[in-house]
């Protein structure tokens, strides 16, 4: 087969035991020290997740990450301990970042209403033989492709591919049954595969697909 699967980086944030959980109740009750400790622990997760989805140099990273952290505080009352606190925060950050990317696309369409949708989705596609994309660009194309999916599918795929979460973890983070996550991944991958097959910029990913 020859497909190398193992990544070099070690697994992080598995969070089988959640040391942050005891801080949630006092933080909800208005304990500023608990809230400060909670935010200090989850903010790096939020920062990294936002940059992972938007790209490290994206001009809106700071705004979107701030929104995500505010969203974490807002939604703390809804935390049901179905996932770890860090995973709860990470999911919010991923959702916000994907929403920001989607909003930017919609905004672009509003600003350029005469431009056909397909040109916005696949701008300036050159012939495949002219394309030599670096890994980073392919990654960006993949994330761009997620914007074309439904929000739940995009979120599940992002948590799966960008953050290496298992189905059980994603189900806990999204508060949905595992079968629902499995279905979203399956449908999302089908759409991604179709995208890869028609977008010449993603030709490097077609090996072994047909």
């Amino acid at each position, binding site marked *: *087969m020859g*497909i190398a*699967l*193992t*990544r070099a*980086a*070690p*697994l*992080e944030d598995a969070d089988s035991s959640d040391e942050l959980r005891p801080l949630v109740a006092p933080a909800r*009750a*208005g304990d*500023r020290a608990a*809230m*400060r400790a909670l*935010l*200090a622990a989850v*903010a*790096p997760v*939020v*920062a*990294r997740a936002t*940059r*992972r989805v938007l790209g490290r*140099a994206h*001009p809106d*990273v*700071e*705004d*979107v*990450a*701030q*929104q995500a*952290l*505010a969203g974490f*505080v*807002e939604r703390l009352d809804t935390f049901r301990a179905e996932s770890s606190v860090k995973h709860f925060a990470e999911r919010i950050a991923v959702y916000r970042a994907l929403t*920001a990317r989607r*909003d930017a696309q919609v*905004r672009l369409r509003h600003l350029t209403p005469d431009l056909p949708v397909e040109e916005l989705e696949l701008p300036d596609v050159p012939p495949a033989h002219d394309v030599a994309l670096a*890994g980073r660009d392919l*990654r960006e194309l993949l994330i761009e492709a997620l914007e074309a999916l439904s929000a739940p599918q995009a979120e599940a795929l992002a948590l*799966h*591919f*960008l*953050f*290496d*979460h*298992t*189905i059980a973890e994603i189900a806990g983070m999204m508060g949905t049954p595992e079968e629902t996550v*499995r279905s979203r991944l*399956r449908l999302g*991958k*089908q759409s*991604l*595969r179709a995208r890869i097959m028609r977008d010449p910029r993603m030709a*490097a*990913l077609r090996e*072994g*697909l*047909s």
Partner: protein
Amino acid sequence: MNAAACPEDALVRARRGALTDDEARVLEVHLAACATCRMSAALGRTVGPLPAPDDEDEALARRLVARQLDDVPPAARGRVVALPARARRWRPRTLALAASLLLVASAASAAYWTAHVKAARRAAVERAAWTPPPARRSAPAATAIERAPAPVPVIDDEPVAAPSPAVRAPARAPRTAALGPEALLRDANEARRARRTDEAARGYRALQARFPASREAVLSHLSLGNLLLSQGAAAEGLVHFDAYLHSDGELAEEALLGKARALAALGRPGDERAVWRTLQERFPRSEYAWRARQRLRELDRGAAP
């Protein structure tokens, strides 16, 4: 191959390097028959590993927390409301809802803000200093932060490379000639975030030369110090960290952190040790205190940076 039976978790665990030999063989057999999973494997390689948090992540996280705590009143006084970001400005309904909630929360927490006005002002200065979108600018900063920084390093006996000529007399690009300190800082920050480092450094230096007493110029010493340090210009970065510290700015923790790192890069363990201790003494509850303790232990063992 029935896609519903695809071993999604095995693919994840393979990327984590956590499969047993037997599990890996089962997955290989599946991959041979399932194009969708082959695509998943290829996508996993393309996306690459989740990087460990770096200095930029930590600095961003610190700013996020500082701003968020400024927005978090005690729960009994009202709910926290997310400010609408640029990404959502185009949505009138969202904006109207956020504005309404913000109004309610503001009224509910008026007593809190009155009692904590000093802390709020400090946080507002910090917020304005780090990300200064015009709509969220604070009132004029405290006197201390407006003080012009000293142009020379202050703690070291050992010689330090003099500031580049550009520090003393920066070239002024025509486009920046008419810009004020806010715009200069914004443009330089944008250039830095876009990895246009030379342009960013030029912008910071132009700001420092033209508006040396502005709070934006003071802050830019910290940004430029970090930029230079990241490029290996530790000696020149040190000059800017010292300039910031001399101004008694609100982000002295970050400046001390940068200064300690610069001294480590310059191989000056005695001075580096003194800076870490200063950071511990001045900011015993700092999020960088653990790093100070760790590095001081390393220095005690004679470790290189």
